[in-house]
């Protein structure tokens, strides 16, 4: 029931003109992906435009950086699940407009930036991303 309600709500939202959702508050990362990890219609419609996305800041890879990874759930590091830290396959790479101040991994944030789609390898970090927010700013939710 809950899931049906959610799907109905998501479906209805997609019928709105692109951009209207920003006024309704931030989207969730799952709004950008379909279940098979292809980009959603919403993501395709919003490519190149500024959107606000709710999520969590994974522990940054590098100090004094403008880069961080947004995850849909807190990036729990489970020694019994993994022998080393691993990225989920549905992350969002964020390039902030300023050097970031780290937010603890389990504090919800809202990140706003320009949505970029397509594979990109960061020349400094070697980090490969499929979807990004650039010129981003973030705040605690």
């Amino acid at each position: 029931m809950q899931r049906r309600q959610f799907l109905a709500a998501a479906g209805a939202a997609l019928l709105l003109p692109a951009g209207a959702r920003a006024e309704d508050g931030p989207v969730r990362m799952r709004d950008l992906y379909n279940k098979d990890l292809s980009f959603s219609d919403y993501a395709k419609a919003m490519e190149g435009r500024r959107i606000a996305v709710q999520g969590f800041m994974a522990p940054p890879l590098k100090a004094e950086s403008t880069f961080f990874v947004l995850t849909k759930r807190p990036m729990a590091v489970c020694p019994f699940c993994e022998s080393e830290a691993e990225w989920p396959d549905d992350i969002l790479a964020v390039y902030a407009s300023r050097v970031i101040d780290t937010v603890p991994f389990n504090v919800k944030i809202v990140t706003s930036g320009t949505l970029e789609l397509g594979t990109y390898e960061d020349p400094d970090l070697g980090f490969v991303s499929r979807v990004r927010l650039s010129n981003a700013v973030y705040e605690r939710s």
Partner: protein
Amino acid sequence: MLKTLLLASVAALVSTAAIAQESLPQESSQWFTDAQAKIKEVMARQPNTKRAKNVILLIADGNGVTTNYATRLWMGQQEGGMGDDFVQPQEAFPYLALAKTYNINAQTPDSAPTAGSMNTGVKQLFNTINVSDKAVFEDCASVKGNELETFAEMVSKDGKSVGVLTTARLTHATPAAVYAKTAARDWEDAVPEGCTAQKDIAAQLVDQMKAGVIDLAMGGGRRHFIDKSITLSEEENTKGKRTDGKNLIDEAKAAGAEYAWNTETFKNLKLDGKTPVLGLFEDSHMKYEADRTDEDEPSLADMTKAAIEYLSKNDKGYYLEIEGGRVDHANHDGNAYRAVTDGAAFSAAVAMADEMTDDEDTLIIVTADHEHSIALNGYCGRGSPILGLCYEVNTATGEGNMKHADTPNLGADNKPYTVIGYLNGAGSVLKEQSDKSYSGSRPDLTDEEAQDKEYLQQALVPMSSETHSGVDVAIYAKGPWSHLFDGTVEQNYIFHVMNQAVHGDGMDAAENGGAMEATPASAN
């Protein structure tokens, strides 16, 4: 003498009860009649003491009594009920015991030695698999001479086939316990330099397939079977992790195995009961059920169906271990949504195994390796959403409405709380502050937020990953010798029931130099 007196008293009680029931005001209640029917069912039970041709051991990792309860309510509520009265397939099995899950050196167990204890009959050391207590964690040399014999090796000598399924990596702790012996569970694709007493876990699987011990193995973990220089461009661009230059997938294929890596290749498997099968459906773990698509990879029930179809072609029978590997991972994340959705997928695999087999010749055991720090709040009215808020008990039941009141229970902080909580983990309400200290308060919460698939239930101790707990887990069983499950038992007892069911009192396997020699009873 005492026993005779006791039996006489019981007879007297039964006779009194029979008389009293004739005029009991509650006797027309469905609660009463259902329980009477249950009495008849239990009294009619006859132990099955035939030799088991087949043994299926289903383990939902991290699915202790509390997590199983959460899945029960979730499944029942998905069907539109209140949830409490829902019966999962394993909960309808006739025999039940509680297992004590601790490891030799750990009050709180991990999945490697717990699965090892079920596969060898002896408790083992934290983070090790199928080596005796004389071996030492991460000490490769200590493995030599301390390897235990596995149930898979024992039944393989009897001519039975062996299968292992998991939604985690095939090289992960629980599946590895079917075929591997290692001083460290993390040696999935490599051992330390100079280590010669054992191979890495992936290599041990392929060796056991070549040796004819393991006939069918399906799960995740493709990357641990190929060298880091190799990228499988056809297979989701899997990059290898091995450092020995090997491609064990090719080695298995060269040795005659059939290989599947997605739904399409899975559906094309011959399942002829003769050709060894290696299925590796993800780089790492397979997807959570909540994130899985049928087009991408099979469900645990799909794999169970295929495995039984394959293994049952052996007239001498089989041993199949089936792991629902990610109930545990979801609990580690503090995300009850994925714990119960993977729990439901595990239940579907139990139902499939039960449906495809005959109770007369197949022993089915359903258990967990350990529980988590998951806990439940009260006092929730019936039908409170198991993933959502704990609503007040409705006391205005005059018109027969037993469902919870509309108002959620509140803590002393005047905020609602969820039915499920965790004692520790990423959902901690204590957050790291800028001065590195931890403080916080419980956020306000709506039922809709709490039931979201990404929601983490509130937890106490801040940790990057929620922990296991040492509390008992249930063992549900049916089939030959399943009546030996009774009371509170040590987890390694599971092996002994499987061995009794397959080999009988003669303990044929022990005579073959099996692990039975290492049990405390025979060591004394």
